[in-house]
């Protein structure tokens, strides 16, 4: 591409910036319209550039897509792997007492460093059979209802709660809709905001939109180094804006879904490091890196009187993303 007559990207960027400034100054709509056309023309030129051309590449930090792949890595530790390494005496509690037992969310009583706690999380499957059994970690309303029912049981006996997020999203199906998927998630968001016990949330893999958030309201929100948290999957985003799910890599960058991005935006409190190469390389080591962070977050939260705890939780989400101007 060295004989490509196109000006380098930096020049295009500079031109676009200048056009933007002129647009601010221009008062006639006609002039503004012309400037906007020029702007998009330059935009098209940029898009025409080959991504293989290193001089044309954005100096963007590599890796959003890499992170997506790691977060979904088939050998990545799932919720029950962490249970095995972090907790003792895990005893599962099933069912929503209304419709069924959703195996995509697992809840259980356990001991964390000697103390009784509740642990729950979305569970993906590793073998094909297991994947189907867990519905690929995509919960239905009964899963969210089981989760809040068991969390309320924990709160009644003043037991802290650990939740682990790892789902492509809430299940988008006819039965889930008919039983009120949206209501189930909404109810959890409201009730988790006021459960009078510490809740420590960890995004361990894929934080897939509302389906993840449905068990994701708490006093601390942690994320593993290679986990992601997003409003929409990169594939769906690409399908919507580029009408091409093949552009998922671009979408992954645009969505700012990596741990670093989320920390910068104040959506998560802390990034938990993973073993070299990623958590899939060594489950035990990944859990060992997470354990002290969970312990610290829990002891911080447990020190607070309940009212302060709930106030802090409220303010935490209240402050999320004060990105506006005016007034």
């Amino acid at each position, binding site marked *: 591409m060295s004989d490509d007559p196109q000006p380098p990207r930096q020049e295009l960027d500079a031109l676009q910036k200048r056009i933007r400034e002129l647009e601010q100054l221009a008062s006639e709509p006609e002039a503004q319209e012309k400037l*906007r056309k020029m702007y*998009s023309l330059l935009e098209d030129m940029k898009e025409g550039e080959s991504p293989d051309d290193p001089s044309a590449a954005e100096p963007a930090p590599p890796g959003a897509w890499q992170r997506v792949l790691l977060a979904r890595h088939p050998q990545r530790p799932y919720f029950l792997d962490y249970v095995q390494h972090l907790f003792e005496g895990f005893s599962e509690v099933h069912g929503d007492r209304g419709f069924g037992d959703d195996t995509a969310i697992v809840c259980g009583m356990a001991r964390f460093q000697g103390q009784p706690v509740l642990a729950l999380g979305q569970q993906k499957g590793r073998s094909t059979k297991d994947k189907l059994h867990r519905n690929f970690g995509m919960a239905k309303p009964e899963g969210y209802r089981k989760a809040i029912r068991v969390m309320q049981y924990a709160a009644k006996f003043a037991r802290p709660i650990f939740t682990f997020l790892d789902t492509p999203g*809430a299940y*988008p*199906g*006819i039965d*889930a*809709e*008919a*039983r*009120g*998927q*949206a*209501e189930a*998630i*909404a*109810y959890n*968001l*409201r*009730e988790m*905001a*006021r459960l009078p016990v510490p809740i420590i949330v960890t995004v361990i893999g894929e*934080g897939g*939109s*509302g389906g993840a*958030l*449905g068990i*994701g*309201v708490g006093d601390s929100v942690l994320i593993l180094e290679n986990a992601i*948290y*997003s*409003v*929409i999957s990169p594939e*769906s*985003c690409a399908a*919507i*804006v*580029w009408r091409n799910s093949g552009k998922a890599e671009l979408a992954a960058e*645009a*969505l*700012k*879904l990596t741990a670093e991005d*989320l920390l910068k*935006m104040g*959506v998560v409190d802390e990034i938990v490091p993973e073993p070299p190469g990623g958590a899939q390389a060594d489950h035990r080591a990944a859990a060992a890196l997470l354990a002290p962070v969970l312990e610290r977050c829990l002891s911080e939260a447990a020190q607070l009187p309940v009212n302060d705890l709930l106030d802090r*939780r*409220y303010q935490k*989400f*209240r402050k*999320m*993303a*004060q*990105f*506006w*101007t*005016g*007034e």
Partner: protein
Amino acid sequence: MAWFRKEKKPLESVEGKRVHTEGLWTKCESCRQIIWKKDLEANWNACPRCSFHFKIDARTRLRLLFDGEWVEHYSGLASTDPLQFKDLKAYRERLSQMQKKTGMNDAVVVAEGRLEGRPVVLCAMEYNFIGGSMGAVVGEKITRAIEMSLAKRVPLIIVSASGGARMMEGVVSLMQMAKISAALARLDEARVPYISVLTDPTTGGTTASFAMLGDLNVAEPGALIGFAGPRVIEQTICQKLPEGFQRSEFLLEHGMLDAVVDRKDLKTYIARALEFCTWTSDKAGSAAAGAPPAP
């Protein structure tokens, strides 16, 4: 045909108007009837023939529900494009286009006024503004509305018309669901009434947060209401969805809504609910039901 015209004078004037008023006619999406827009407006923007409910904008909604004047709040809040999101078009550009088109800074109006004499805080979402999607501004305005409602002890009404969380503000949009729901928990504890009105369409993160958290959740007829959009579901299950799936009547049948109410009856229904929630036997209290207590 002169004699005919003379006999049917009103018709003549209508015919005369038809010539000059092209574009003042519209076709019903449901029954294909051609309707004069004036007739449509006079009928609460529902088809006079089949009662199909047309989408209405936020300001029309305020006019339908408030008794008279209202005071708007937080209209200056505008997105700062936290992600610097860009797809085929820069989000910033999309925003300014929408702002010009709708005369609004973002997809919701927050206003205080009276509904059948009772003071209320009303949030009306604007579907024409990026599909009524919820980013930081919508989240912040609704949260402020809830906090105002709580501080003044004035009932809250949110009329949803929204495709859900706004993709272009990423996970920040998602967190608005948690933020608003937490505020609603406080309103709930204070026992200040909240009526959620779901209109066409209400999906995604909007449904999965405040729209389903009312003391009452009522919908207009025929509104698309759900978590996942119909296309996403079709792609997942690889089959066509049944007729009427995810419409108000479907949700009512499945126990997910408290009522489906025609637009023309909506104000009365809400007024009755507010009376139910705030009525007291004390005469002085009853007159001031729903009003903030004297400081």
